[in-house]
C-alpha cells in the first residue's frame, strides 16, 4: 500500500510533466556556428576535380554528383551520373533521402564554388554527413579535366603524370572538344538510395 503511494507520487507528476511539454523533434546532431566556421576555414568539404574524375572513370558506386544549378543549366551540360537539385529545391522533402544519408558520398557542383558551397553549408548545418563540394565547380572542371594544358617539360614528373591522367580522363569523360552535351547519359533515373536507418535487432519478449 505504502509502496504504491510512493510510486504514484513519483510517476504521476512525471507523467503530467511529459504530457505538458511538447515533443522534442529536434535532430540531435547540429553544428554550432563556431564549428561550422571552423570547417569552412579548413575547407575539408572540397574535393578536387582530379579525384572526381578518377572516381567517374572507375565508376565508383559510392559517388553521387549533385548539380545545384537550375534545371535549364543542368539540361545543357552536366557531369555523368549526376542528379539535379536546384538550390531553391534543396530543402524539399523529395530530396531529403538523397542528402541525409550515410551510404554515398554526395558532391555538390555548380559553375563555380559559390552555389555548391551554399548547398553544402545548409546541409551541414542540418547535421547531414557525407556532403562535399567540387572544388572550382564546372569551370575548373573544364579547365583541368576537359581541356588540360600540357605542363612545361621542365616541371617535375608528378606534374606530367597528373597531365597524363587528366588527358586520359578527358578522353573517357567526353572532353577534348570543350563542353559537349552528353545529357542523354546523365539524365538517368534517380539511383536508389538506402536510407540511413540501419537495421535493428528485433527486441525480445518476456
Amino acid at each position, binding site marked *: *500500500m505504502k509502496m*504504491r503511494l510512493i*510510486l*504514484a507520487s513519483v*510517476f*504521476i507528476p*512525471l*507523467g*503530467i510533466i*511529459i*504530457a*505538458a*511539454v511538447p*515533443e*522534442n523533434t*529536434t*535532430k*540531435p546532431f547540429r553544428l554550432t556556428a563556431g564549428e561550422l566556421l571552423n570547417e569552412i576555414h579548413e575547407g575539408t568539404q572540397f574535393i578536387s576535380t582530379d579525384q572526381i574524375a578518377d572516381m567517374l572513370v572507375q565508376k565508383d558506386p559510392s559517388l553521387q554528383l549533385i548539380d545545384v544549378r537550375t534545371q535549364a543549366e543542368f539540361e545543357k551540360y552536366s557531369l555523368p551520373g549526376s542528379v539535379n537539385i536546384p538550390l531553391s529545391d534543396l530543402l524539399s522533402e523529395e530530396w531529403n533521402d538523397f542528402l541525409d544519408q550515410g551510404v554515398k558520398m554526395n558532391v555538390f557542383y555548380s559553375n563555380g564554388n559559390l552555389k555548391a558551397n551554399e548547398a553544402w553549408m545548409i546541409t551541414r548545418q542540418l547535421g547531414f554527413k557525407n556532403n562535399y563540394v567540387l572544388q572550382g565547380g564546372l569551370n575548373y572542371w573544364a579547365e583541368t579535366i576537359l581541356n588540360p594544358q600540357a605542363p612545361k617539360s621542365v616541371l617535375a614528373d608528378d606534374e606530367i603524370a597528373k597531365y597524363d591522367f587528366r588527358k586520359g580522363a578527358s578522353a573517357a569523360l567526353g572532353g577534348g572538344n570543350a563542353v559537349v552535351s552528353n545529357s542523354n547519359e546523365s539524365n538517368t533515373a534517380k539511383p536508389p538510395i538506402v536510407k540511413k*536507418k*540501419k537495421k*535493428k*535487432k*528485433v*527486441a*525480445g*519478449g*518476456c
Partner: protein
Amino acid sequence: MGPLIVNEIISPNTNLLIAMLIGIGFGFVLESSGFSSSRKLAGMFYGYDTTVLKVFFTAAITAMIGMLFFSLFGWIDLSYVYVNPTYLTSAMVGGAVMGAGFIIGGFCPGTAFCALSIGKLDALAFIGGLVLGIIFFTEGYPMWEDLYKANFMGTPTMNELLDIPRGIFALGLILAAFAMFWVGEWAEKKFPREEY
C-alpha cells in the same frame, strides 16, 4: 546521442556485451521477484497473485517515462528506436496461444529459463514444449504464412493509432497502470489462496 548503436557510439559487439549484462540483471530480478514459481505466474489468471501485472507494468511505465524524458533532453532520437511491426491477426492468435500456454504451463518463455536455472524440472518440461512449438511453427510455416502475415499495419504506436500526443498517452497509461494495480490488489483480497 542515442540510440548508441545506430549512431555508432558503440560497436555491435559491445552492444551484445551490454545486452548480456542486462539479460543477467533481468533474469536476476525475475527470480528475486518470485517469477520462477509457476503458481505465482498462474495466480495472475486466477486473481490470487497479481505480482506479474505489477512488475511488468511498473517496468513498462518506468521505461516509457525514461525514454520520453531522454527524448525531451535530446539524449535519444526516438525515431531510430525499433518498433515491432504489427500483424494484427497473428498478434491476436499468438496472444491467445501464449496466454493459454501461460496458464497451462505456469511460465512464460523468460521465466521458464529463469526457473530452470534454479533447477525446476517443470520448467525443463515447459522448455521442451517451447522447443516443440518452435519446430512445429517453423516446419509448418507455409501452412500459416497467410495467417501470420494477415492484417499488416506497419509499425504504429498506440498514440499514433489513437491520434493523441505521446505525452498525453503516457500520462493516461500511468493512470491506467495504477488503476490496474488497485484492481489487482482488490482481486488478491477477493480470491485469496492460503498456500502456493
